């Protein structure tokens, strides 16, 4: 099935091709006419949410290998260990996406941190990566322990840990009218809120992105953040949550935080950090969709997850191309790329446009679905949505003009390192973003 990763110690190209092949195979699983779980066996199941995310994982992982071909493979930077690391990470993510068992889900959710840490530590560029790794570990691990408590508590009270027994959990373990219910919700979502991340617990993400190699950034933005939102979806289903005041609180925090992070984007001088903050803004939209208690919100959140996965991964890839060309990511230095690498600036244009949700892409679809859901849920937060939508357009344009226009810096070598592999990567990010709009019933699962 989908979750078998063959023979772990294979060479670079073997792992690349097998990942591509697996992503092709996983497309078979994508379409499900009904909103239902399909059990593979006692331990694995998938539904619409997880099967799309599994396809995304395979796809992005193969793109990661292709994207870091120059960094790792050509420059002989321990490529076997790198591909091994990615395969292990991939395995853990796939397992996390299709577990029926809450404990195993938690196990895999946490286990995916270790290969990510290895990626950041082993193939990052600067000595600050130690601090970034420490931030990432401490933030996510400390936030996830309350979740473990909740899960064990739920397991004890219904004597079963299958995710599919969701209706029993709600009856058994809590009383929605009590004041402790709010803390209960906080505890059960804190792990995912940090992983997502929402504003105020987001500090680890820009650090990790800045220090990670290109593959690390890609998987961090594309999959690991999605793991957080996937966890929210699953735990929401599992605990059968009703409306609670704390959900309102989280949505307000996330959306106002999204506005703030969009503003913070303007103050960044590091290209990767800018993209990281923009992805925090987008993830806050996902969170708003999830917490809106509305099927449209959920569908929109799923689409936003996929769209943001492709788009931000491509943006990190572009930032890496710029870095390989100019050896800096500082926005003061990276200028005038339109003159030196016009093909790259075409891709910059396309992905900046996608980042601000232009019409044929699924980003726009997701925003269209999240906005009304959010308006129905809390009409006052419409202001945030308007601001974020506007600011996303502004910082995408800002990023584009700042890097592409203006004069060349003097130290820029006239030849480019842009090759067809990179074009392929970017093209393979661009196609699903634009063509999934023709097959949106993949995501409209209700």
């Amino acid at each position, binding site marked *: 099935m989908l979750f078998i990763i063959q023979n772990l110690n294979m060479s670079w190209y073997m792992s690349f091709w097998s990942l591509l092949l697996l992503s092709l195979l996983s497309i078979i699983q994508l379409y499900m006419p009904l909103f239902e779980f399909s059990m593979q066996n006692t331990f694995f199941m998938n539904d619409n949410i997880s099967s799309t995310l599994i396809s995304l994982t395979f796809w992005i992982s193969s793109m990661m290998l292709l994207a870091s071909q120059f960094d790792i493979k050509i420059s002989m930077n321990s490529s076997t260990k790198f591909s091994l690391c990615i395969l292990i990470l991939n395995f853990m993510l796939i397992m996390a996406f299709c577990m029926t068992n809450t*404990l*195993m889900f938690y196990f895999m959710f946490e286990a995916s941190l*270790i290969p990510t840490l290895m990626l950041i*530590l082993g193939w990052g560029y600067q000595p600050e990566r130690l601090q970034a*790794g*420490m931030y990432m570990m401490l933030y996510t*691990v400390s936030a996830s322990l309350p979740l473990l408590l909740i899960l064990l508590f739920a397991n004890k009270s219904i004597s079963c*840990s299958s995710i599919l027994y969701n209706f029993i959990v709600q009856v058994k373990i809590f009383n929605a009218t009590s004041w402790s219910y709010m803390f209960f919700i906080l505890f059960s979502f804190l792990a995912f809120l940090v992983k997502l991340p929402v504003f105020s617990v987001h500090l680890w993400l820009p650090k990790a992105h800045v220090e990670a190699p290109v593959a690390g950034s890609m998987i961090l933005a594309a999959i690991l953040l999605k793991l957080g939102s996937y966890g929210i979806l699953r735990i929401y289903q599992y605990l059968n949550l009703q409306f609670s005041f704390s959900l309102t609180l989280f949505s307000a925090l996330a959306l106002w935080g999204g506005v703030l992070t969009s503003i913070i984007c303007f103050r960044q001088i590091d290209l990767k950090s800018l993209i990281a903050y923009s992805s925090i803004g987008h993830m806050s939209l996902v969170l708003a969709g999830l917490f809106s208690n509305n099927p449209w919100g959920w569908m929109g959140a799923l689409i936003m997850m996929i769209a943001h996965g492709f788009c931000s991964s491509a943006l990190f890839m572009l930032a890496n191309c710029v870095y390989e060309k100019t050896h800096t990511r500082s926005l003061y230095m990276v200028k005038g790329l339109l003159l030196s690498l016009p093909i790259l600036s075409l891709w910059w244009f396309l992905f900046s446009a996608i980042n601000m949700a232009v019409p044929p892409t699924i980003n726009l679809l997701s925003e269209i679905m999240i906005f009304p859901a959010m308006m129905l849920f809390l009409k006052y937060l419409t202001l945030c949505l308007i601001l974020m939508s506007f600011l996303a357009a502004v910082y995408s344009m800002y990023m584009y003009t700042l890097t592409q226009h203006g004069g060349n810096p003097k130290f820029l070598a006239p030849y480019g390192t842009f090759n067809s592999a990179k074009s392929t990567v970017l093209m393979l990010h661009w196609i699903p973003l634009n063509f999934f709009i023709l097959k949106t019933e993949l995501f409209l699962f209700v």
Partner: protein
Amino acid sequence: MLSILPFGFLFIVVLGFGTLFSLSSVHWLGIWAGLEINLIAFIPILVYSKGITSSESAVKYFIAQAMGSAFLILGSLIGFSPSFSWNFMDFSAHSYSISLLMVNLALILKMGAFPLHYWLPSVMAGLQWMSCLILVTWQKVAPVFLMMSFFEVSYMFWFALLMSLVGAGSSMVGGAGGIGQTQVRVLLAYSSIGHLGWIMFSIVFSSMAAKMYFFIYVLISVGIFLNLWILDAKNMISVKSFNQGFNINIVNILVLLISLAGLPPLLGFVSKMIVVMSCVNYDFIFILSFLILGSLMSLFYYLGLFFSLYFSCSSFLKIKSFVGGLKLILINTSILVINFLSALIITWLIGLF
């Protein structure tokens, strides 16, 4: 090397005998005598390297343990006066609680848990790796298991509360003390205090969980201390300057450190999860949060050690340059495999129920 000394074997046998004698006796005199025999046999093992630091540590250790034994015998004698029986099984909840308290404080002092833990890091700082290993594993067996049996004989609420507070305090101290440490031995001593806190806490709820935790802790510590023994790492600086030859050991230590920190893909997570599972239905869940806080703080210094080790092995897995022989390779690989596989399997099994 201890193993080639003629008296090493003798003292290790006596060491084991003392603990077993203490654990299997029902009489207070036997318990006390077993602990003393254990102490007598352990002192020569501490000083076998004839260094000044290890003899200093041995003296400190001796003072702490002798004090603990004295309090133990005193507490049991106080308990003798109401029941006129010096039998362990009659040491019931209705005897003086002061005697119960005193005996337990003696055991806490002997194992080095929270309020009376101060001797442990400074003793560990001066010892050889082998002695450290015995100190954090086998020397804990007698106090921990005695405590477990006290708890089964005389269950009282204040006693349970005391034990879990001691556990929480140990975990916090173990977490806070290790931060900023530069010596690996002291760091591992604090980590041992922290894990002891978890064990003490789990005694209250299920002795099975405590045994499981203890067993897993011993398994991981054996791996770590053996590898550090081979590398002979004294402090963080020397950890950084290992040459490239010893790399498989470093990989082992890396994995086991993560396991000791209790992160999910490894076995250390399972032990913590079992403890949490055993206490999740009781009222002490608030105290558990302190334990978790302590283990988070210890995660900080484990990660610090992890980072400095990680960068000392830029090209790891050169098995041909392994030092230590086939037996150690077998031990290491088996510990690693156990760490990886059993964590998955146990989590899965627990999930089935």
